[in-house]
């Protein structure tokens, strides 16, 4: 799966979990700042990503997810 496809999945999940319009999301968006996500919402998004991509993301990786591109980078290495 390439970056654009991964981004599309993330955007869909953000819309479903937190009602964030796809237009608002870019690779540079900071999850807790630009997108105003709570830590609980980030965990829900991670759970949805795990289900979508059929992977388990280890706890210690969560700390490195600050921006959307951090998520894409990580997912690319797992499912790219």
């Amino acid at each position: 799966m390439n970056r654009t496809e991964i981004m599309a999945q993330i955007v869909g999940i953000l819309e479903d979990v937190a009602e964030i319009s796809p237009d608002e999301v870019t690779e540079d968006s900071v999850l807790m700042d630009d997108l105003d996500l709570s830590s609980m919402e980030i965990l829900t998004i991670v759970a949805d990503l795990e289900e979508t991509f059929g992977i388990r993301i280890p706890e210690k990786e969560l700390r490195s997810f600050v921006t959307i591109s951090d998520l894409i980078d990580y997912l690319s290495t797992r499912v790219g």
Partner: protein
Amino acid sequence: MGFEGHRVDTVYRLITENMEQIYADLPGLRYRGADEKIVTVTFGEYAQDIRRCVGYITQKLGDPRRKKVCLLGQNSYPYAVAILGLLAADCIQIPLNQYKRWEELSYELDLVEPDLILWDGASYPWRDQLLARWGGKLLPLEECTQAPPAQLHEAEDPRALSMIMFTSGTTGRSKGVMLNQWSIMITGRDSICSWEVAVERAKEMGCKDETFQLNHFSTLPLFHIAAYANLLHWPLYGAATNLGDARSFYQDLADMPSESMAVVPAIAEMLRRDILRNRRDKIGPLWILMCSSAAFSRETLLDLSHHGILIIQNYGMTETGSGGLVNEAQDEKHIAAAGHTIPCMEYKLEDGELCMKGECLMLGYYRNPEATAEAVDAEGWLHTGDLARVDEDGYYTITGRKKNLIILDSGENVSPEELEGLLAGCEAIRECVVKAKGKKIGADICCEPGRQEEVRAYITQFNRTLPLYKRITAVDFSEGPLPRNATGKLLRT
């Protein structure tokens, strides 16, 4: 089973009467097992495992009384068993926050000098340091049910120190709050869970005495006083505990249908959104929210209440055990208040600050008499640091904070000084103040305009090293010095 409950006031009686006799065959606890399937343990089986845990601790420590045992790990069935087992064995238990950085955990472990550390062995960032420093004291939590069941005895003194819980200090270093089992059990007995109110609503909903059993869902960490107290309170009423994980919140909720849930504001917001978007299928039979840990928005509470959710709020702090204020009001005027008083505590407002004393109060901060004297005055009043007012109906409302501590939507308490200390590592920052900005942790930073990007990059990088809840996510820059008060201290408001 039923509306009545069986209110005992010691852990020994809770295990031997409620769990082993009255509710023995009812589901006591559910959790997701290693094969991903939900496991249901009856109260009787749960009690048997608690006895095995006492046997295990005795095997490892000889006479376990007054020995100090740390608990370190994710919520799990063995963790719940160990909490009750260590109480039954008359140990002093110290549940630690596994999300902390090693510097903080290490400080707490050195302060406590544990005889034993029960942990889940997960791949935490500090795993190697823990093994190097405390390897000889570590035992796997999951082993704690693998010994023959032990005889149980009533605690020698239910008011003696039985747990130490760390709480964020306002000066950066955490403080160990010393509590006893009495301070938790008495609030259960005096119904801080607002049992009567829930039963009243259950009757209106058509529930029958002979089949009534509540199932209570919690993803809050067991090292936190609210989740910890719930674990001891729900068996008073034969209610089952569903141990969920924040990582798999909706899946766990779907697999363990629950009428009641312990929530912090961030979870309440998600549930509200589900209900308002007609996605009630995501939350199952839920109709009670036990709200605690931070202030909730009136609008959220009203929306939830108007959609049939019974809102129960508990105000308190680790220092007050599980005692504090309780709010069961559903009306517009009172729903957002912190609550009314409970029988086992006394209350007063001193210069606007809410002060409490009574049987629930902590025994003091562990090995920190100065901090204890600062928090509890000579007459035994705990100064909460919260400013409050009380209305003509007896409801207290929190109006602000006197102490310097950020209390977040996730229920976490964060010391601004600690984060300021970490920011000081960036040489482009001349001075800074960390404070709550809306729902976020924000920083006002004084630096040269040309170096703002450097500071932003530093903060982004530094956020990667912090747990999600502790991240600085709202930054404002200033070229000139930050405002100070008359005595030269940086202004925090």
